[in-house]
């Protein structure tokens, strides 16, 4: 017997672009299509209490052992090896994606953002859902508009030291987003389960 029911764990994202005065220029909110293989492999490592080869964000397979660092995404200011990232890649998502295609770097140079600390809400229950969000603000102080932002995603830690990270989820935006100099882009992912 097979009975299909509606999906019960969902990921949503919101992208908000602001100018230097905080005025909202653009907002995109939609259902994410983005978990990739490393996310499930991390859960497997934790659930089975074992190790598993997982491709890191550099494309290298690393043996990942269960630890309290697995899945960590709470990056601080300027940390870009884990946490939410944005980029210019346009290639559709595949299950084997291991990084953003063309991630924007940290800094104040061309096509670079100042990555602020990750933030998160606590899980909240509004029956039949339980959800929380994670968020990052990226500020453009590069001196010019950064255009062509097409992808977002979240890197998660797989090992604390030496530091390895993997891609947890990635999305390609429906259209290009431009962030003016002095402005910012805020990416929020909401992870929800429904009974």
């Amino acid at each position: 017997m097979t009975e299909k029911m509606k999906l019960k764990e969902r990921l949503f994202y919101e992208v908000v672009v602001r100018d230097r005065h905080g005025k909202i220029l653009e907002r995109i909110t939609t259902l994410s299509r983005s978990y990739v293989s490393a996310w499930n492999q991390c859960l497997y490592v934790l659930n089975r209490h074992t190790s598993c080869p997982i491709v890191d964000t550099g494309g290298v397979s690393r043996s990942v052992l269960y630890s309290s660092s697995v899945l960590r995404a709470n990056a601080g200011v300027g940390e870009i090896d884990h946490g939410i990232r944005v980029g210019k890649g346009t290639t559709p998502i595949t299950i084997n994606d291991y990084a953003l295609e063309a991630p924007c770097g940290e800094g104040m140079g061309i096509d670079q953002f100042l990555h602020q600390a990750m933030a998160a809400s606590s899980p909240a229950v509004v029956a039949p859902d339980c959800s929380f969000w994670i968020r990052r603000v990226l500020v453009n102080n590069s001196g010019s508009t950064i255009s062509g932002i097409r992808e977002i995603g979240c890197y998660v830690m797989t090992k604390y030291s030496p530091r390895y990270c993997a891609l947890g989820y990635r999305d390609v935006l429906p259209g290009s987003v431009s962030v003016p100099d002095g402005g910012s882009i805020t990416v929020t992912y909401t992870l929800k389960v429904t009974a």
Partner: protein
Amino acid sequence: MKIPELWYSVVVKDRHGKVIFRERRRAHSFLKQWNQFIWFFHFGGTISPKITTGAPTRLDSHDNNFRMNAGEGDASLGIVIGTDNTPVAIDDYAMGAQIAEGFGTGQMHHLVNTFGAPVISPPSCGYSISRIIVNNSGGLITVRESGIYHQHSYRYGPVAYNFYFYFSCGVRDVFTTPQDVPDGGSITVNYTLQVTE
């Protein structure tokens, strides 16, 4: 579209190994505790998910958190089953009426929890968690629910490595059809967690 999906299958066999019932369906079942653990791993902070007694209990960082690999005879961890058919609610924190480990009336013997390693087969990546639970109680037992308990670590006192280990329920499902497991028979529950394009 890639969204995590949880599937379960149930196979019931008689004492001779003959399959007498089989059911496979998409699970209905992630609970509040599942997302609280994901949050804790993903971001960290202070949170007190309910353990299987219903008591909110602080979750502390430990390598054992989210562990489900129960050994034989351990019904406190891994896949568990029960006799209750109360519909699943997001606030559920345990089986409605868990079947205890043993060979007495209403009890079943839990074999080791096994795992299938993640398989990437585009467009999907999935792994499985399975357990065979045997009825040697001397009578028929009707199973109506299944779920997964995982480890929950709580640090006490001033010493950094003093931990109590509890269990939280991350998944619960009520079967479409109650499963009668005859004496000498078994029930195999398999959960598959996968992401799919």
